[in-house]
Each structure stands twice: as C-alpha cells, then as structure tokens.
C-alpha cells in the first residue's frame, strides 16, 4: 500500500516536471497558429458601415503602453487615469492595460516579444526604437499589416490620410505597409518645441542682450560665471547620451552639422564625421576648460539639472517649452522672485545667419503609435476602437478630454477648465492635462494647436516657438525613412559601434582627456567601422522614400 503511494507520488512529480518543461514550447507554437488565423480573419471580414460610438461589445481587449512621464507621481496604473477610463466609455470597448516600468520600455517590450505572449495592442515607437523597423516587426510576425483593416474599418484615419498625402507618405513603409495608428502633429506650430533657454533677469542685470552668436554665448556665459557666481553656467541633460538635446542640432547647428545623419545637396552626411564637428568640439572643450560648462556634464540627468536651475548654479540650458521653461520657471522663481527664463535663438557663427539645424519634428512622430499584434483576438474591433481618435469627437476627446469636466466649448473654442489649469490638488497644468487628455503628449490621434495655446501658460513659452523655429532644419533633416529588414540589422550593428565611438570621442575631447588633434583619428576609426556602408543604406532608404 505504502509502496504504491510512493510510486504514485514519484510518477506525479515526474509528470509535473515534464509538463512544466514542455509548456515552455507552447507559446511559440500557439502563436504560430494564431498568426495564420488572424491573417485569415483580417481578409475574410467584410467592410463594415460607419461605426457608431460607443461600440456594443462584450469583448475586452488588452493594451500595452507606457504611462506618460508627467503622470509618474500621480498615477501608478492606467486605471487610475481618468483619460483611459473615459476612452473606454467613449469607444465602448473595455480595455485591460499593462504598463511597462518607466524608463525600461525597450527592455520590457523585448521580454514580452521573446515570451511570445502578446497583448492585442502595443503602443510603441516601431519606427525609431524597434531594431529592424516596422517592416521587420511585420515580417517577424509580431504586428499586423494594417492596410486592409484600415481600408475597411478605419474610415476616419483613411479620410485623414487621403486629405494629407504628404503625411500618408510618412506613416507607411517603403513597400506601402501601414503598421500603426500614427501620432500626427496637426499644425506647424506644434512641431517646434525645443531650443536654448536662458535667464533673462541675469542678462538684464548685466546689461547683455539675448545671445545670438557663439561669441555672444561665450561672453554671456563668462559673465554668468564671473558676475553671477554660477557654478555651472551652462548645463544640459546627458542621459542617455551626452548633451542629449544636441541630437537636434543645438550649438552643433551653428557649425553646420548635427549629431546624426542629414542631407545636403542630395548627399547624405554624418555630422560627427564632418569638419564642423571638430569646431564644435573645440568650442565646448574651451568652455569646459574655462568652467562655463557644468563640471558633471557627462553624468548630469534631468534631476541634477533641475537642481542646478533652481539653485541658480545654471543660467542656460537647452530644453522644451513645456518640460523646460514650464517646469523650471516656478523652480527659479522659488529661489529668486525676479527670475525669468526665456528662449534664445539657436546660435550662429555670424550675426544675421540662419542656423542650419534646430529642433523641428516631422508632422508624423513615430512615438506613441499603436500597432495591433498578430495575437489580437479581434483585430477589427481593435481597429474600430483606435480609429475613434481620428474622428471629430475623438479629436476633441484626445486633445481636450471630456466636455464639462476638462474643457468647455466657448464660441467653438475648446477651453480647458480650471480643474486642469489651476488644479485644486496642486498638480502642475502639464500633469493635470495629461490626466484628463492626451493633448500634451503623443498617442493615436491628430494633435490640435489649440491645446498648445493653453498649455503654454506663460507668454515666454508661447514666444519660444517663434524664436526657435528660425532654422533651416526642414531643408536638411531626413524624413522618416525605413531601411529594409535585411539592411537594418546591418545598419544597427554598424551604428551601434559608431555611436559608442562618437559618444566616447565627444566626451574625451570636451573634457580634455584627449587632445583635439585626436579628432582626425576618430574619423578614421568611424570609416573603418564601415560608416560609408551606413550612409549607403540611408541613401537607399531615402531614394525609396522619395519614390513612394
């Protein structure tokens, strides 16, 4: 009797261990099956008539997406954010949210993809942050090609794209695949939001004008250091890369280069390999040696910069109108009531010139776009749900939230209520707006200029856009091009090595650990890491883009 019991136990344990390890295989196999199925359903379904919201459905869809940075201290999950609750009410589709940990979106997505256990919808930057790009994501079987689905079930998005062929060109791949519900900056005004920021009260006190040329900047920063006692006259965020905002061409633009690829007279160039970059290194090296730059500049993160701004150690930086001026103005005022932050134009070498680069986003921003996965139970429902953002009522909802709660219509102008602008719980407008609407950040909708007119509460913020937009960035920046899946893995390997090299070189030369003369040898190293091949790939992708 006893013996039988023991052997039964042993058998059970063996069986348990076996099944545990065979279940390891299941997700992948299961998904293979799914891929086929969903492909079929997508083709089988007939075009439906216009959807009336809210949709009547019992199905619950799963949605994976990051919680906006503004809301980190406000809400831990999507369910605590009124916007996401109202979104479900408006569309009638119940959603189950999963949020990756803030700052680890890429890692979290990676783990999720490797597990093979996908939600119905994924909010992610497939163009910029998915190695291999959207075409690869479709080919590898993670997300659906949406052409048919959009054609039949997303009349609002379809109409928008038909009315805006230039944007239509941007949101698809070379082979014409739609891969996500895009985030579109609906107006020119929304595309510029970042640039140099400086303490106006210090300038006035010292009798200096707002700096325009590089020489002005040197003079101004020196004055900040000597007369205002600023310990770190110029400081910037260097996470994840040194002088992160220089990617848009701040200060680099004066020397005619940017940190990435750009086009000039039909030729694609890589900024750090052009001679202008050496001039930039020379300038910053001098500034660092003279104590005009933050001593911790290689490691400073946004927290450190906030602290320096607030304490008056820093008098100039590069940042956003909302997240920069808007965030710092109350901080600097807290320490010095007279303090005023204003936008400074992108610097140039000689007065009167137009800088070659500055921040200017494309109308299609690939962040915050929503793709439908191959494991989606009901892709049609997901498409109908997402299409809401491009409808007229969805447009108002995404930008301004719920009428009567977060905005009121006044003579056809959606005006944010005091709940958002003068929040009773003392939330900053940026936080309160993010709680009730998505106007201030990205998502599957078309952004409305009227949001910015109210979001930029300060006159200095509204002026900033006008000051920063004076660049030639449009002419030189590359459109959202997509290398083919084969090219892109090669491209990623090359650029990963080159970017590491550029980051290292930039810091070493600026911080004075290597002589400026080393620059040439770094350029040679870039060449030996196959920079030319990377340029070739970019060029081919650009040609395909232009031929779209």
């Amino acid at each position, binding site marked *: 009797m006893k013996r039988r019991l023991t052997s039964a136990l042993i058998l059970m344990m063996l069986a348990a*261990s076996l099944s545990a390890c065979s279940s390891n295989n299941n997700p*992948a196999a299961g998904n293979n099956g799914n891929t086929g199925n969903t492909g079929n359903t997508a083709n089988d379904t007939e075009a439906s008539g216009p959807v009336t919201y809210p949709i009547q459905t019992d199905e619950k869809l799963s949605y994976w997406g990051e919680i906006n940075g503004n809301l980190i201290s406000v809400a831990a999950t999507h369910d605590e954010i009124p916007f996401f609750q109202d979104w479900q009410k408006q569309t009638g589709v119940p959603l189950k949210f999963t949020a990756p940990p803030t700052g680890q979106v890429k890692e979290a997505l990676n783990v999720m993809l490797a597990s093979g256990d996908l939600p119905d919808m994924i909010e992610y930057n497939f163009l910029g942050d*998915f190695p291999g790009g959207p075409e690869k994501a479709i080919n590898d079987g993670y997300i659906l090609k949406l052409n048919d689905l959009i054609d039949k079930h997303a009349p609002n998005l379809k109409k928008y794209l038909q009315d805006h062929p230039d944007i239509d060109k941007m949101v698809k791949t070379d082979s014409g695949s739609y891969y996500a519900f895009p985030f579109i900056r609906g107006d020119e005004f929304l595309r510029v939001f970042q640039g140099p920021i400086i303490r106006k009260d210090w300038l006035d006190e010292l009798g200096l004008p707002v700096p325009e040329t590089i020489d002005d900047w040197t003079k101004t920063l020196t004055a900040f250091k000597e007369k205002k006692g600023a310990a770190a006259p110029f400081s910037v965020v260097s996470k994840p*890369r040194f002088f992160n905002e220089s990617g848009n061409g701040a200060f680099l633009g004066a020397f005619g280069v940017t940190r990435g690829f750009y086009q000039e007279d039909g030729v694609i160039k890589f900024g750090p390999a052009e001679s202008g970059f050496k001039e930039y290194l020379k300038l910053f090296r001098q500034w660092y040696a003279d104590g005009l730059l933050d001593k911790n500049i290689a490691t400073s993160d946004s927290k450190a910069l906030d602290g320096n701004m607030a304490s008056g150690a820093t008098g100039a930086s590069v940042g956003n109108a909302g997240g920069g001026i808007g965030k710092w103005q109350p901080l600097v005022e807290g320490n010095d009531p007279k303090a005023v932050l204003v936008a400074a134009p992108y610097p140039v070498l000689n007065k009167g010139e137009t800088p070659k680069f500055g921040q200017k986003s494309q109308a299609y921003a690939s962040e915050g776009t929503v793709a439908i996965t191959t494991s989606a139970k009901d892709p049609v429902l997901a498409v109908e749900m997402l299409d809401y953002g491009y409808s007229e009522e969805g447009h108002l909802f995404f930008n301004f939230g719920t009428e009567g709660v977060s905005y009121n219509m006044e003579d056809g102008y959606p005006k944010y209520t005091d709940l958002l602008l003068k929040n009773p719980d003392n939330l900053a407008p940026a936080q309160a707006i993010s709680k009730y609407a998505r106007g201030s950040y990205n998502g599957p909708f078309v952004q409305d200029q009227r949001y910015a007119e109210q979001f930029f509460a300060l006159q200095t913020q509204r002026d900033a856009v006008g000051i920063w937009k004076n660049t030639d960035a449009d002419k030189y920046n590359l459109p959202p091009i997509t290398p083919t899946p084969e090219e892109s893995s090669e491209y990623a390997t090359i650029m990963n090595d080159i970017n590491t090299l550029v980051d290292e070189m930039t810091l070493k030369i600026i911080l004075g650990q290597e002589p400026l003369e080393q620059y040439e040898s770094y350029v040679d190293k870039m060449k030996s890491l196959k920079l030319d091949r990377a340029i070739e790939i970019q060029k081919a992708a650009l040609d395909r883009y232009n031929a779209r």
Partner: protein
Amino acid sequence: MAKTQTGAGQRALAPARTTNRFLRDFRINKYLYLMMIPVIAYYFIFHYAPMYGALIAFKEYSPMKGILGSDWVGLKHFHDFFNSYYFWRILKNTLVISFYSLIFEFPAPIILALLINEIRSKSFKRVAQTITYMPYFISLVVICGIITDFTNADGVINGLFTFFGYDGQAMLQKPELFRPIYILSEIWQRIGWESIIYIAALMSIDVEQYEAARMDGASRIKQMFYITLPGILPTISIMLILRMGNLLNVGFEKIILLYNPITYETADVISSFVYRKGLLEFGWSYSSAVGLFNSVINLFLLITANYVSRKVNKNSLW
C-alpha cells in the same frame, strides 16, 4: 572534504553486488530518496531544461518561430563577436575587473573576520558586525545613487580634496577612476556579509588549541597565524574555488548604473555588453552566444581552480 564524507562508514563492495545494495539502501531510506525528488526536479526544470535554449546562440532566433523553428547560422554570432571592434576591450575589462576583485575584494572579509575575532567585548563585536553587513541590504540602485552623489564634482569626496587644495572633478567622468570606485564600493557593500561564513568557521576551531598555544607563550599574532588562519583555510579555499567559477560574471547591474560613454573604455564588460546587445537591440542570438562564451570560460576557470586546489592543499569541491 566531500571525499571523506562519502567514504566514511561504508564497506567496499564488489561491483556485482552494487545494484543489490542500492535496492536495499532504497528500501531502508525510501523517504530520504523521496525527499530528494523535489531537489532533482528543481535542478532539472530550472537549470537543465532551459539549457536547450542555448541553442539560439547557433541560430537566428525569432520568438515567433520558436527555438526549434529558427534557422541555423552555425558559429556566425561567435564569429561576429570575436571580430567585433570592441571584443578585446570588453574581454580585457572583464578580466581586469574580475582579477582586481579577486585580489582586493576576496581577502577583505577574511581580514575583517580575523579582526572581529580578536575583539574582546561581546557587545562591540556585535555592533561592528551589524554595521559592516548593513550595506549588503541596501538596494543596488540606491547604492549607485549614493556613489554618484559622493563622487560628483561637488560631492563629499571632492569636497575633502578641495579642502586640501586640490580641484575636484566628477570622478565617474574619469576612466582611470572607474575600477577603484567599483572595487572599493563593492568591498564596502559585501565585506560584512561575506565575513559571516568565516566567522562561523572560526567558531568551530577548538579552544583548547589556543589554550595550549598560550601555555607555550604564543603571542596573539602568532596564534592568529598558526591556529586561526589554518583553521579556516578549508573554508577559504572552497570559497575561492566557488568564486573562480563566477570570476567573469561581473555584476552588470552595477556597471550599467555607474558607467557612461566616457568610462566605457575601462568599465564596459561582457555582461554589460550582453545587456546592451540583447535587451536594447533585441539581438537575442548574438547576446546568448556571448553569454555562452562567458560561461565556457567560467567553467574552465572553475575546473582549473579545483584541480590546483586539490593538488596544492588536498581540498576541493569534487
């Protein structure tokens, strides 16, 4: 150590009777055998079964195709890694940081244990122990935050230097300072915790030996060198062997939290490289090839260390 245990109390048996003996042993100790099953199952499920996942190092892995369904690429990923521009730098950094920690960090808890052993006051002993092992329980993220703050241009440590007339620079911006900062903070973090095992070993040393030594007029230093140290030597060598097996597993979390492009030159190690390649660039196959390479070297080091230890002081894991 292990050898003497298994050899003790058993008669040598002829091979023919081995099966018979096993069955009898099984009958007598069946519940002991039963208790072993969960342990075996644990190792099988969590340590052996996932090993087939190492296959992806030889494939172009795509999760949607599954491990078995992905295409074979042979040694391509190993080839890519060995030919990569940063291969030698990463390997060198890994080895250097590992050996530094072996030389500087490994002896630290032993020294601490010896020191604590010499303390006479019981309460002071307890306080000293508690204080030294406290940092072990602080989250790594917090530790790294503390390190970054302390080593800033205007941090505490530079404040001291400035006081003595040196001009401080952010220390984490200097490649040559990365390793000392890493190792020193590592010692601070783990010294107390790791000394516990040596303190436990010290407890088992026969007190009579000390009494006898004192009779013979041995000083405290002499007692330490001739009784205490030999007493814990077996523990030290086993710890050393175990450590050799992990030599190349430099903790990537701490490196990643502390490094930045300017210190890549001295800080970038195999595991942080694997992290960047695998998790940030979705290069599963490539990073598992690198990880496999790492494990093979570790295995080799472990076997060598064990062999040397067996030859030198007759003390080994197997």
